């Protein structure tokens, strides 16, 4: 039997009930299966026979029944003979092989993710047969494997979801609006059930989630086409699937649905499908280990290349081999670093789905535009960025974008617009979320900040300072907490997550025109561009990102406050001066600033000058943590292994400032003379 269940199902679905050739072929297949001892084939044989004989009342219905039988087929080896037809009872669950199960889990998750992407593509462009078929196949494969494993509930749900997709394939319905909602929810529920399976440790199978029967009922209703025809009128094309003229479909979609991310979106997804072919799943732990080892290879390679014996050797062959080795090692390093990079696509897809759901929930019509899905970013960071994105989008939908009437009154299009853009700019990744809503209310934020004691009642604040308040934990100007936002958690999460990956959040807003969040994030967590400097015989790496200037001061540019606080006057700004050797308790340092090197560093809007001794160079280094045991050390963000195999600490400018200003409350205790940039 070289035809697998998938192919068989495809053949059944693709069969033309009017063609005796098709039917005969199917009948033969089923008869072979029956002889091979497969259970559940008898009925199919009977049905096909009646079709061939022309006895069937409704050929389409009969063929559908055959398709259902395919899903319930069992090879002779699996299950026990006492239960023909009924599928494997959950009591058989001890038969589940954990390995097969985990494979099923990963596989179906992938399938369901594809369902989501494809459904969104179909919804945007109903003529996109390819996506429609892909979504259908995804449900179908999930169903097939679930049935093989005896996961009855997943099978049933996937089956019904598939049936509904099939109706769309046949052109009986347009997969948009409520239908698409239903399918997406079904996919979500399947995901949930599969997630529960992932934790399956043996014993009884996890129970179906709440709402399972309702979901089934809704799907069944939708299948029979008796309800939910309000969003899209059925296209009267009850004949064979191939006969549906592609052009007729989009016309039936309501304008609000079709105007979505249409052209740009679906094009991107198509490209995505072409690109996402053969992949291998590797645990990140292994990947990190590989990167570590490649790093060590680089170091050892450098050591060999610099070895006096090698340098002075006369053997031409050896020299060229060492050089070749270096080249290979470098290429290997580039390659190993690129392994961690993934495109934003999956995140954007999730976001698109979120926008769609929020749009329905809030009743605001939204137009979501995404650009730059192919921009690549470190895999570890993608996950950390999703949460901030969710909060930013919720915020934009709930607070930023006005309801349609209000928008129309202001002469804006009724449909709110959300634009998400990712691009690379000067060594960082920029994520930009732009809405064309009402913009931030400067006065409201300031009033709230004063009410909460965050802002000084008498002080004037710049826009930038005011916008900063919304990132405070618990800060919300929303009068009421809605389902979507208002608890004041979101923006705090945004800032925290972004800062945890050494990124920055910027905010620009124009009343009545909208708000733009800009997240600037380093290309990868793993590498920074650093300046190597020495203090009291110790070497440290200072992230170049933070460095503004390096100078040797004139005696006249230095002043002190109260005999202690040192300051540097630089371009008419007073900048606090901190001595690294004092902060780090190092002995034997140069103590005269005019003999030392001052490096002006900045973090956010704060600046200070750090006193070190010499600048030794600049280089890209791979950041490593100091090891679990040390956790985080104040003033140090990590360490790097340099070409000589030695370790250098990477300085954390923010931490150093905090340290210098004293204690965790440092910033509030910052002396009044400490400059601000603006």
């Amino acid at each position, binding site marked *: 039997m070289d035809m697998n269940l998938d192919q068989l199902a495809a053949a059944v679905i693709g069969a033309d009930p009017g063609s005796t050739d098709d039917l005969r072929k199917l009948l033969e297949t089923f008869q072979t299966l029956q002889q091979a001892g497969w259970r559940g084939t008898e009925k199919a044989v009977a049905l096909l026979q009646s079709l061939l004989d022309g006895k069937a009342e409704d050929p389409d219905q009969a063929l559908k029944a055959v398709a259902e039988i395919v899903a319930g087929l069992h090879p002779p080896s699996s299950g026990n003979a006492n239960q023909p037809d009924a599928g494997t009872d959950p009591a058989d669950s001890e038969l589940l092989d954990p390995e097969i199960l985990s494979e099923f889990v990963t596989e179906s998750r992938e399938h369901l993710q594809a369902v989501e992407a494809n459904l969104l593509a179909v919804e945007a462009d109903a003529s996109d047969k390819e996506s429609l078929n892909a979504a259908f196949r995804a449900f179908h494969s999930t169903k097939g494997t679930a049935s093989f494993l005896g996961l009855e509930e997943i099978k049933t749900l996937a089956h019904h979801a598939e049936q509904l997709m099939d109706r769309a394939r046949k052109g009986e319905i347009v997969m948009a609006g409520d239908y698409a909602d239903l399918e997406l929810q079904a996919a979500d529920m399947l995901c949930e059930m599969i997630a529960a399976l992932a934790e399956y440790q043996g014993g009884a199978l996890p129970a179906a989630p709440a709402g399972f029967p309702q979901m089934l009922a809704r799907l069944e209703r939708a299948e029979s086409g008796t309800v939910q025809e309000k969003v899209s009128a059925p296209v009267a094309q009850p004949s064979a699937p191939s006969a549906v003229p592609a052009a007729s479909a989009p016309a039936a979609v309501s304008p609000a649905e079709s105007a979505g991310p249409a052209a740009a979106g679906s094009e991107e997804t198509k490209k995505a499908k072409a690109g996402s072919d053969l992949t291998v799943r590797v645990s990140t732990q292994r990947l990190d280990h590989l990167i*570590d*080892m490649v*790093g*060590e290879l680089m170091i050892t390679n450098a050591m060999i290349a610099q070895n006096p014996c090698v340098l002075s050797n006369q053997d031409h062959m050896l020299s060229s081999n060492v050089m070749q080795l270096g080249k290979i090692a470098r290429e290997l390093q580039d390659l190993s670093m690129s392994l961690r990079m993934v495109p934003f696509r999956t995140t954007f897809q999730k976001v698109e789905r979120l926008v769609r759901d929020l749009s329905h929930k809030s009743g605001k019509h939204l137009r979501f535009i995404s650009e730059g899905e192919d921009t690549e970013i470190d895999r570890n960071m993608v996950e950390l960025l999703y949460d901030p994105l969710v909060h930013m989008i919720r915020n934009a939908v709930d607070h930023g974008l006005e309801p349609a009437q209000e928008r129309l009154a202001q002469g804006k299009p009724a449909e709110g617009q959300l634009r998400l853009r990712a691009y690379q700019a000067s060594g960082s990744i920029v994520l930009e979320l732009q809405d064309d809503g009402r913009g931030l209310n400067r006065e409201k934020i300031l009033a709230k900040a004063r009410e909460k004691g965050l802002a000084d009642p008498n002080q004037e604040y710049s826009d930038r300072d005011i916008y900063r308040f919304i990132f*405070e*934990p618990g800060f919300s100007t929303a009068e009421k907490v809605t389902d979507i936002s208002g608890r004041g958690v979101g923006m705090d999460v945004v800032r*925290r997550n972004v*800062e945890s990956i050494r990124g920055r959040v910027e905010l620009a807003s124009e009343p009545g025109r909208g708000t733009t969040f800009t997240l600037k994030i380093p290309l990868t967590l793993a590498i920074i561009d650093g300046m190597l400097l020495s203090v009291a015989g*110790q070497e440290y790496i200072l992230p170049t990102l933070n460095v503004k200037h390096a100078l040797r001061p004139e005696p006249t540019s230095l002043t002190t406050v109260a005999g202690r606080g040192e300051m540097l006057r630089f371009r008419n700004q007073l900048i606090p001066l901190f001595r690294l050797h004092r*902060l*780090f*308790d*190092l002995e034997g340092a140069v103590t005269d600033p005019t003999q030392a090197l001052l490096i002006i560093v900045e973090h*956010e809007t*704060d600046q200070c000058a750090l006193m070190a001794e010499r600048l030794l160079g600049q280089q890209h280094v791979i950041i*490593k*943590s*100091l*090891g*679990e*045991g*040390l*956790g*985080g*050390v*104040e*003033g*140090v963000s990590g*360490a790097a*292994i340099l070409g000589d*195999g*030695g*370790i*250098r*600490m990477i300085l*954390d400018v*923010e*931490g150093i400032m*905090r*340290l210098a200003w004293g204690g*965790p*409350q*440092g*910033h*509030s205790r910052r002396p009044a003379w400490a400059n601000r940039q603006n």
Partner: protein
Amino acid sequence: MAGHGSSETVDNKVVGGKFLTFFMADEEYGIEILKVHDIIGMMQITPVPRTPSFVKGVINLRGKIIPVIDLRTKFKMEATVRDRQTCIVVVDLGKLQMGVIIDKVSEVLDIAAKDVEPTPDFGITLDTGFILGMGKLNERVVILLDISRVLTGEEIEALHKMDTNPEAGKQAA
């Protein structure tokens, strides 16, 4: 007994099994062999600023950065000149690895549970929480260390707190 390296555990306290023994001054100590990941010679240790004095710094163990503590400093013993016998025992403490500087590695000993005596009480002058027991072998006494408790809970917590503190400070930024 040979070949089965696992220790017999009672009340979370290991009372017998294979131990790697080493010297600190003239006292002999033992660490459960299963917790020992590596023994390496002294190598360049990069100091980490603002850490407790017993944290000597970090080393590069084949591409992995691990912290190293000096057992002499930790035990408040006099510092000595490091020689060729000084080495770093890398131990596995659950998910973290840590290097421990010791004076001299001795041997791997099989110590039966019956040869382990409970730690005598020294009163408040000496905290014995990190000692599993005293192993008796003929004339020798080996102090069996619970290496995961050599750094006390508070110390580990303090080390971890350094990690969480920045969060507290960031709020005001």
